[in-house]
């Protein structure tokens, strides 16, 4: 079973929401769609659900036309950013609702709803109303209602975005377990967070300005982003890009900073390049004097915004530390981890993957 989109275009007022999108989704597959806001992620889900009609292109499920199938005939379930539940119904009734509407007898509907509530960790909350639940629990109810239908296609549109970071952390972990069990469905999950997309997806799709700009196994995409744009989207904080050149046997960055050419870039001809270096591949204790513009703490990491002769860049330090604005730190660039992009932004060479 496969859902196939071919050359789908959706335009509103001459703005491309989906721009020539072709994708294949297979049964049992878990697809994460990664992109910034306005990348076209929600529009993609709406097109699959039949809530938005493309101006161009075809959509088929198992070889049959799906584009013209009315919404109510599609076996699709969707979970939204906002927690959408029936406020007047109990948790159990909320989850059983789609089954009752489909004519499933009360007893069976209840049994199946309880099964799913157990799966999302809400077995003890069946008699409560949604308003008596926390945000995370409400979103689990919405997820349970989507799962209980055993839909062919399960669409999740940034379901964790409105939760605080502790809950996101917890639900991400639970989702990984829950989705593993969905072998009969196509699951499509959108997010703006690279970590979430890589962790949950079997296949990852990067979208930008309505177009699919890269797809593949999450780690393969992470390790070899096709363009600078892809590299920026799949890294948070975005990958650092330094303009420079390979000349006279060295990598030359702005401000006359020289780096040795690592083995994976040894075959490159002289010329100008854009060099990419992940924020976690810079470290303190080097020789490049850099001024601290701001130091932020995120979870268990410190994000240093720095400026130096080589340009403005970000350094991601594990652990929590404090640095005063305006103070100077010495930075080391790990040349073994450098990506080389063409001045146009296409990937030319990536560092070897270390799996030890």
């Amino acid at each position, binding site marked *: 079973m496969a859902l196939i989109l071919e050359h789908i275009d959706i335009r509103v007022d001459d703005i491309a929401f989906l721009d020539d999108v072709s994708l294949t989704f297979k049964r049992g597959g878990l697809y994460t769609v990664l992109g910034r806001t306005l990348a076209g992620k929600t529009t993609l889900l709406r097109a699959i659900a039949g809530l938005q009609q493309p101006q161009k292109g075809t959509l088929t499920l198992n070889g049959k036309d799906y584009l013209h199938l009315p919404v109510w005939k599609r076996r699709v379930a969707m979970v939204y950013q906002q927690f959408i539940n029936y406020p007047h119904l109990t948790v159990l009734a909320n989850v059983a609702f789609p089954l009752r509407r489909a004519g499933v007898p009360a007893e069976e509907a209840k049994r199946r709803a309880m099964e799913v509530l157990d799966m999302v960790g809400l077995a003890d909350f069946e008699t409560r109303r949604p308003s008596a639940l926390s945000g995370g629990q409400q979103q689990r109810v919405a997820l349970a209602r989507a799962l209980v239908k055993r839909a062919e296609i399960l669409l999740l549109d940034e379901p964790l975005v409105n939760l605080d*970071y502790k809950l996101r952390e917890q639900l991400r972990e639970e989702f990984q377990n829950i989705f593993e069990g969905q072998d009969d469905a196509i699951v499509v999950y959108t997010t703006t967070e690279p970590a979430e997309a890589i962790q949950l997806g079997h296949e990852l799709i990067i979208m930008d300005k309505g177009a699919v700009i890269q797809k593949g196994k999450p780690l393969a995409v992470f390790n070899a982003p096709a363009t600078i744009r892809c590299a920026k989207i799949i890294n948070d904080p975005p990958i650092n890009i330094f303009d420079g050149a390979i000349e006279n046997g060295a990598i030359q960055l702005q401000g006359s900073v020289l780096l040795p050419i690592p083995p994976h870039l040894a075959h490159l001809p002289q010329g100008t390049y854009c060099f990419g270096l992940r924020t976690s591949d810079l470290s303190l204790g080097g020789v490049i004097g850099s001024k601290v513009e701001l130091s932020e703490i995120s*979870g268990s990491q410190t994000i240093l915004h720095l400026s130096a002769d080589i340009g403005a860049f970000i350094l991601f330090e594990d652990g929590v530390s404090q640095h005063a604005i*305006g103070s100077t730190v010495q930075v080391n660039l790990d040349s073994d981890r450098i990506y080389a992009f063409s001045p146009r932004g296409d990937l030319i060479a990536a560092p070897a993957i270390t*799996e030890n």
Partner: protein
Amino acid sequence: MAKIELSDIAHTYEPDSDEPTYALKSLNLVWKDGGTYALLGPSGCGKTTMLNIVSGLIHPSQGKILFDGVDFTHFPTAKRNIAQVFQFPVIYTLMSVEENLAFPLVCRHMPQPERTRRVHEVAQLLNLTDKLKRPARKLAADEKQLISLGRGLVRNDVSALLLDEPLTVIDPQLKFEIRRKLKRINELYGLTMIYVTHDQNEAMTFADTIIVMSDGELIQSGTPQELYNRPETTYVGYFIGSPAMNFIECVPADDRLQTAGGSIPIPSNVSIPAGVGNLKIGIRPRNVKFAESKDAMAIKGQVNMVQEFGNCRVVTVRIQEEIIRMKLNPGTAIPSGEVSLDLPEDKVCIYANDVLIHQDR
């Protein structure tokens, strides 16, 4: 500029009740002149109550508040020389940016040209100079919030700046700039700044000292590093850091701490009080490693789940009923079957009844 002391402060919103619930339970705090502080906790923890006591919007049911040693407890807000920035920008919609900024000075009868000089100085600091003549209502949310901030800064008599979740309505990309400006203001003017938030990242980024609150109580006051490395309670260990600190139940047995899956030596500088129950070993996911050598006594478990995040992998190890998370570098090899864990002694915190047992020094 002021040192602020809260002495035995407590507050209840139901003073007439026989058994009043305290929104803020008795606490003592000293805020240094020119320091940056964050009040951090979930909604309902008492942090806004505390802020309102400082600004004088609430008179505490008990205790005293001192500014530079002077009892201000019953002084009205207007006499406290405090500026406050709220969640949502507060601007005079019919005035220009310049008139907004000048308003507090006009009210205090500050003469010209001093007034204009101050307004321009603050406008320059906040990058509002080229917008001074524009109607304030026409500005974007982040610039409106800067006006609110600027109105607090133009006064030369302000001793403390209180910020109540000031970045709530600001776009993520613009938060960066405002954070920088706040830091800069602190350095330039030496204002004591108190920042209320439920967002640990915001608090850790802004403040030199973080006051973690829960259920009306002060749980810990310390630097971001102290909160991260030595959480005073298991709650702080859970709330600060991602993933949260691991906690493993244990009992003392001779010179070791016995868990369901093995034991570790009692850290040499920790003494476990006799007869104490509910002991837990706390350790950050980053500090748990796979043991190199097979130590018969080491804590052992089964790899339960691997979460791949690209720039790190989080491995969940099950030890009987308990879960330990490890945060590893990308590409770190993960053994299959039973694994032995290495919990470095200097990274381990021991908790009795969820409170840290302090190390002997």
